[in-house]
Structure formats: C-alpha cells, structure tokens
C-alpha cells in the first residue's frame, strides 16, 4: 500500500545567520490514500511551511516530500498536475464570475472546452454555487467565496488536495457547511486531503488521522480518538487569582489524592485526575490550606486541547497567541517557563 503523501525528515530554515528562523526541524508523517489527514498546531508551528513544500512553492533544506508517488523536489511539474491547493488567503479572482474563475483554472490545466463546462457545472452544483455562477464573485458571501476556492482546487480532478486553514475567518454556520463539503471530497472523488488547522474541533471533526506540530516538530500522531484515549480521567483547570502563587498551588494540588500529571501555564494549572467530581472537594480544601485563592476551577472530559497540552507542554491557546504575536518577550518567558515545567516533569 503506497501512501498518497509522505514526509521524511523535512527541515526548513528561513533567513541566514543570527536572524535565521528554523520553521521545520525534521517533520515526518505518512498519509494513506483516500483519507483526511490533519496537521494541527498553533500559529507559527510550521503547518503552512510543510504545505508549501508539498505544493512545490518552497523547497526544504533537507528531507524528502513525496506526493502521489512523485518526489516533489525531482518532479515538481508532474506534482502540480496531481495536486490541488487552497492557500490560507482567498485565491479566487474577485472581478470574475464563479464560472469565469473555474474556466480560467481549467484552461491553465489544459482541459478541453467541453470538459471545462461539464466539470464546472458539476462543481458549481455540488458546492451549491450554481445559482450564483454568473455573478461577479466580489458580491458573494465569505462562505461561498471559500467554497469557490476549494472548487478551483478540484477543477482538474487532483489526486491530493491541500487545504491550508480552510475555515479561518468563516462564521460558525459557514464553517459547519465547509466541514460537510470537505468530508464529501474524500468520499465523492477518492481524493486524499491534507488539512492544516489551528482549530482543535476542526481536526477532531474532520481528520481520520492527525499529527500535532509544535515549533517545527511532530509531537504526537494518531486518530483523534487514540490521542484523546491516551489521556485517562478528566482534566481539571485551576485559574489563579495571583500568578505568583503558582508554585504554592502546584505543591498543594500535587499532594491531593487522585491527581496525576500537572502542567503549569502562566496563571493556570492543568491537572489530570481520575474522577473530576470526586477529586474536586479535596482539591479545593488543599488550595485553601495553602492560602491560594483560585479565580476559577473547571472540570472537563479530555479534548484535543489536553492532548496538545500534554505533548507541547503549554496550552494550545497560549501557544497560538505566542505564534501570532511573533513571540513577544513576555510570551517567550511564559512558554519557556512552560517548557521547563514540561521537561522537569519528564525527568
């Protein structure tokens, strides 16, 4: 069984010398044909860089990328015919109608006139865009425009589809709609989909398998169920009113019976417990005894957020913010503190 997508030891550095930024440090994974594979990670984790390498936009410093049996570095021309790509940013032409967009795309791939018409009709119909097909796309809703981006990428019947954050910026309704379309793609056309996202629920919902990427490395891989199943019990989150009490709180929580691993993330402590409801009274009493006042206390079933926290040593949202802000000073401190905690735990 050949894989539709295969990455081995991908390394990519942007810039040179002191300013060099390591975007990928040895990413590897394999995607079986006809499945949806998720690349989950916060902003700046290396998801887009990975996608750019597979879509021939960028070349890795080392490592190999194989799509549909073709080595991306050796046969970029053939790879381009085999793949469809939906970039993070909208890529339709706003001054053209939906049909004109699809027609130009078909011509670019050397499709015949009649094939362009039938395939265009088919895609417009399937994505619910047929009624708007002859209107200028500038006037379409955001959800329709994004669906057109996906339709454009499917025009030439690619074997592999790359979706880079396909639902970022969409309202919840349009997002749910898009999720249904993406699931349909693998079923209707047998296309293999590589999906990058920083929405945990999106990966949970769509991906047959996924990898979690953090700071240019794969930190976990499996089906969403496997990843969540690796975590036992419930997740308890303690938000401290005073962040300086973090260490005292850490000690107090650790002493409570039934508490497993603890991760500190700024003013928040995340603890794994066997049974949330049963542990809570003892936990509150321990915090009270240590003179720590919690601002809030929550108990939840494990989510991918907890999986991420466990493998990356920081909560997904703080990592996402750090990535967005280009890692400003305070956030770097927070994340290095989190990393210290994480490595301390491993020892």
């Amino acid at each position, binding site marked *: 069984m050949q894989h539709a997508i295969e990455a081995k030891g991908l390394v990519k550095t942007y810039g040179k010398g002191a300013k060099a930024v390591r975007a990928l440090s040895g990413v590897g994974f394999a995607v079986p044909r006809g499945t949806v594979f998720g690349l989950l990670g916060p902003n700046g984790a290396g998801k887009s860089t990975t996608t750019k390498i597979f879509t021939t936009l960028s070349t890795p410093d080392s490592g190999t990328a194989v799509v549909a049996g073709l080595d991306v570095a050796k046969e970029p021309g053939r790879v381009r015919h085999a793949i469809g790509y939906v970039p993070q940013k909208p890529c339709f032409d706003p001054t053209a109608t939906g049909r004109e967009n699809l027609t*130009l795309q078909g011509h670019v791939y050397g499709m015949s006139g009649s094939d362009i018409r039938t395939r265009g009709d088919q895609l417009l119909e399937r994505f619910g865009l047929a009624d708007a097909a002859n209107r200028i796309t500038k006037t379409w809703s955001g959800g329709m425009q994004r669906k057109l981006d996906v339709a454009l990428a499917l025009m030439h019947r690619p074997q592999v589809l790359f979706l880079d954050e396909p639902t970022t910026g969409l309202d919840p309704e349009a997002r749910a709609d898009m999720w249904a379309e993406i699931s349909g793609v693998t079923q209707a056309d047998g296309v293999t989909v590589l999906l990058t996202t920083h929405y945990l629920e999106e990966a949970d919902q769509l991906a047959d398998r996924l990898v979690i990427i953090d700071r240019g490395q794969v930190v976990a891989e499996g089906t969403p169920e496997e990843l969540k199943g690796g975590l036992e019990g419930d997740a308890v989150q303690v938000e401290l009113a005073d962040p300086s009490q973090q260490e005292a709180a850490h000690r107090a929580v650790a002493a409570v019976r039934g508490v497993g691993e603890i991760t500190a993330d700024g003013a928040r402590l995340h603890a794994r417990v066997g049974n949330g409801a049963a542990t809570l009274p003892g936990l509150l009493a321990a915090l009270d005894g240590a003179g720590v006042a919690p601002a809030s206390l929550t108990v939840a079933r494990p989510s991918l957020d907890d999986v991420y926290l466990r493998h990356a040593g920081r909560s997904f949202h703080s990592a996402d913010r750090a990535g967005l802000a280009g890692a400003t000073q305070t956030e770097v401190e927070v994340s290095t503190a989190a990393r210290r905690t994480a490595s301390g735990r491993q020892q």
Partner: protein
Amino acid sequence: MSATLAPAAQARTAGGQRGAALRHAVYLTGRSLRILRREPVYLAFTLIQPMVWLLLFGALFERVADLPGFGDISYLEYLTPGVVVMTAMMSAGWAGSQFIDDMQRGVMDRNLTSPVSRGALITGALAYQAVVTVVQSLIVFGVGLLAGARYDGGVAGVLVVLLCATLLAVIFAALSCAVALTLRSQESLIGVSQFLTLPLAFMSTVMMAPALLPGWVGTVARYNPVDWAARASREALLGSPDWSAVFGRAGLLAALTLVMAWLATRAFRAYQRSV
C-alpha cells in the same frame, strides 16, 4: 529503442511547453483585460487621460512652436507622438500592481502551484500592457486628427509610433513588475513610479524641441528611453523621415526591452525563492 525515441519525445515536450506558455500568456492577458473592462471608472480614465494630455499641453504651449527649432509643423503635430509615448510610459508604470494584488491574495500562490508557465505570468502582464498602449495611442492620434493636426508620415509612420510606444510600455511595465515583486507593496510601487515617470517625461523632447533644451537636460535626454521613443516617433511621422535615425533609436528600445524583461524574470525567481 528508448534511446532513439528520447530526443524526439524531448523535442515534443519542449514544443508542447512553448505552446502551453503561449496559451497561458493569452489567457492571462485576457484575464487582465477583463479586469479593466469590469472597472468602468478605471477604464474611463485609461481612455480619457491621453486625450487630456494632448489637448491640455497642446493648448498650454501652443505658441511655443513659434520659436525656431520646431520646424514648419504645428505644436499639436509636434506634440502628438510625444504624448503617445508619455502615456505609454505612465500607464505601464502601474503594471506591477496586479502582481501585488495577486500576492496579497492567494492568487499568486495558486498560480505557482499550478502548471501555469512561469514565463507566461510575466509575458501575460507585458502583453496586456502592449494592448492597452495600442488602444491609448490610437485615441491620441484620433483626437489629434480631430483637432486639426495632420501627420505626413501616414500609416507607415503611425505603425512605427505604435511600435516605439509599445516597446517603451513593455520596458516600463517590466520595470514596474520587477519593483512590485521586490518591494511587494502598492505604496512603494506608487512612490517609485511617480518618482520616475514625470521627470523622465520632462527631461526629454516630448514637449520641447531638442535645440531649445538646456544643455544638461539635453545630455540626460540622450540616455532617456522616453526621448528615444519620442524622437523616433516624431521622425517617422515626417514627410520624408531619416529612417536610420528612426531604427537606431527603435533598436535601442528593443535592446532595453530585453534587458528589462530579463530583470523582471530575475525578480520573479527571487520572489519564488523567498516563499
């Protein structure tokens, strides 16, 4: 067997690639023309601006032609080829803005992951500019004729003017694309374009007879492609042109066109590497 077949197959592929590049360039030119058509205000200004230049400068400097140095033609007749080449340069200065739009959206990324020929992306932009230039130039001639100007060079003369204007347009369009791909911001492109075009138009014989230019301007003009195009065009419209002077300058324009197209292609490669 396969060894003997290989060269033929290779030649076919190379021919196929050239065919595809040409087709892609045609589609991309068509796309740009469609965008122009869909923006009525922009289209109107593209068509009206050359008329305004001709009529405005024609009226403003009408008496200038009374000075010695302009020969025995009216100022409007002197000015027409100059306005044609000036308009060509000024329109072409914006050619790169489509690239910036495409880069800021995901259009450029989508194009680069498709089999679209890399050369066609540049050629399409330049060919579009050439089409716009021919239309604008014909408008200027039409307005000139309506205003009473007569061009002794006839059809052959007009064709030479169109050729020079198109070469000049491609030179500046290629430069504009190179700037756009390097700086990647509309504001920077506007800045560079404004900084270059007006001074180049004035440091030439577009509006003023060669003999009347101040010495240093005359020196600059000799190296100014706008002046090459203006002189060649004016000469070609005379009753009995000095063809060697015309083709000498047209040759310079053609050489510079190649240099600029190469520069734009280089800028494109650099952009691709930086993705």
